[in-house]
């Protein structure tokens, strides 16, 4: 997985500048600055309550930043007009934590809805695309099932079929392995890797599952609940070998013990460059 991300070319798909997130008066995270590179798998990690999911909600435009801005392909979602905004949304897909399939629609209708909304395809073609998308996630033959009739893992895969219906350039995953057994979770990881390799999709994953992070992540960002900001960014291997803070070390090595008192400043210096891609 080392260096899987291709070099930056032109504008980055997602750029976060000086983002501060709040829930009411409560500051969740301050001063986030990062860029996601095209075609990479970028993992946002951190402990429970560190603001991972909140950050995701900001990235997909469901929450407005308290301060700072988020650029999607160089465009600010919130300042864009209705048409640009729809264009942006069309180019991204989201896989929610529990799938969030529309419960009143069958799997086929779930996958078909984005196609009906954005394309001029006739019913037959839409049906074919839907079958293909469901087959790609291993759900051939489940077209007529309702979300409530299938298992959690299948629901997530069906949701992935829906999220990829319009061949998005950027895909967001909210805790893809939560609630799944290790085998199913690792299959989902396979799918994520394959999507990136075959379609060159840029993928942003929110996760705290270390196995999955080491497996899929090109780069990872660590949100620290106490510092209320990001304290590390880099490849997972680098973060494990030379963690910039003790909290990162504990997270990456799955340890609850206080750190050994080895000069914590030395690696931090080194990491500082990788931590921020200058805007």
């Amino acid at each position, binding site marked *: 997985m080392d260096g899987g991300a291709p070099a930056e070319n032109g504008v980055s798909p997602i750029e976060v500048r000086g983002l501060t997130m709040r829930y009411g008066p409560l500051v969740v995270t301050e001063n986030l600055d990062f860029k996601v590179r095209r075609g990479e798998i970028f993992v946002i990690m951190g402990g429970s309550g560190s603001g991972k999911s909140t950050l995701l909600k900001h990235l997909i435009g469901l929450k407005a930043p308290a301060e700072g801005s988020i650029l999607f392909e160089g465009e600010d979602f919130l300042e864009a007009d209705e048409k640009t905004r729809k264009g942006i949304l069309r180019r991204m897909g989201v896989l929610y934590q529990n799938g969030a*399939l529309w*419960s009143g629609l069958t799997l086929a209708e779930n996958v078909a*809805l984005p196609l009906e*909304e954005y394309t001029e395809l006739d019913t037959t073609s839409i049906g074919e695309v839907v079958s293909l998308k469901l087959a790609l996630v291993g759900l051939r033959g489940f077209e007529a099932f309702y979300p409530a009739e299938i298992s959690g893992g299948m629901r997530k895969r069906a949701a992935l079929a829906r999220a990829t219906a319009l061949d998005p350039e950027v895909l967001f995953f909210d805790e893809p392995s939560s609630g799944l057994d290790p085998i199913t979770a690792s299959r989902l990881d396979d799918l994520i890797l394959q999507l990136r390799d075959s379609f060159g999709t840029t993928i942003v994953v929110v996760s705290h599952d270390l196995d999955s992070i080491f497996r899929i992540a090109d780069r990872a960002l660590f949100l620290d609940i106490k510092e209320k900001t990001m304290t590390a960014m880099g490849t997972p291997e680098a973060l494990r070998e030379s963690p910039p803070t003790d909290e990162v070390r504990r997270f990456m090595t799955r340890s609850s013990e206080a750190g050994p008192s080895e000069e914590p400043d030395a690696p931090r210096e080194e990491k500082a460059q990788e931590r921020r891609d200058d805007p």
Partner: protein
Amino acid sequence: MGLEVRREAETLIVELVGDWELSDAVPRFAPLLENDSEAPAAQAVDFDATGLGSWDSSLLTFLQQGMIHCEAHDLEFRSGNLPEDIARLLELARAVPEQETERASAELPFPAAMGTWGLAAWDGLMEAVTFLGEVADSFLRLVLFRLRMRWRDFWVVVQSNSSGALPIVTLIAFLVGMIISFLGAVVLRRFGAGYFVSYLVGYGMLREMASLMTGIIMAGRTGAAFAAELGSMKITEEIDAYRTLGISPVDHLVVPRVLGILVTMPLLTVYAGFIGILGGMVVAIMVLDLSVTQFTGGLLQAVTLSDALLGVFKGTVFGLIIGLAGCMKGLQTGGDASAVGKATTSAVVLGITLIIAANAVIDWLAVLLNI
């Protein structure tokens, strides 16, 4: 469970005896020190657990009290003589210092509470206006054929509001018709005007009660269902999934529902009026000894088409209110399961309140316009 207290120099020794169980009461720690009158005052607390039998959280709770008490009164708390596993658990409970949570638990002073309430009310109003604007926009696009309608949702609503609602509407309307007729029977018979009971029943049912009762039933039935449906969809992130696909949840979820109830409410009102008159007739025949011909004759003489149309108009307005209130509260649902309950409740309360208010306004206008 037992406690003995003794003193050794400036140390208070608490002897823990027997079995400690949560099903017995947990003793208080503070009185042990307060009852200890021996001078000089104790400077430390130690334990003797040689007689201790089995124990559970009751002992830990007692010791935790002791620890907090000692900290507060600058006494030394010696846990060295406690069994090792107990000492370790106490250590664990102390390991993480009490978190400074930023939760505002303090009661606000009255003016601040009023201010908060006012701001919340203002926000609520703004949300309602925004929602109404979105719905109006969607309906405009529907009329201009620029909105792809989800007909299936529409037909589901129509079905549950027509055939599904008939039994309850029949029952209530019939009973209300009977009630009006009983009232008329008692009051009108005194003036020897029992014949006019059909006028009362017809006029009352068609103008007021048919639409009002149907509205209230539907607010509790359909309005609540809308709020619960959309509320659960909010919690399972299905609404978010619409938004992040750039599809308006109002177009897809609200329009078919509101349209569905808008179509069925007038029909139900007509039906309820008919059934109510039937109920009134039964009472009139049984109690007032009127014949069917007398009843219908009196009815047709006094009640006009405009009375019936006014009722149907009211039913339509009530349908709109129920649909909008239910969908709005559903979409505004907060983040957890209890929020769905709250949303459902407030959808019904808001629906019924607005229906009755609207009824009063329409009646007033009808009087002014002489309808």
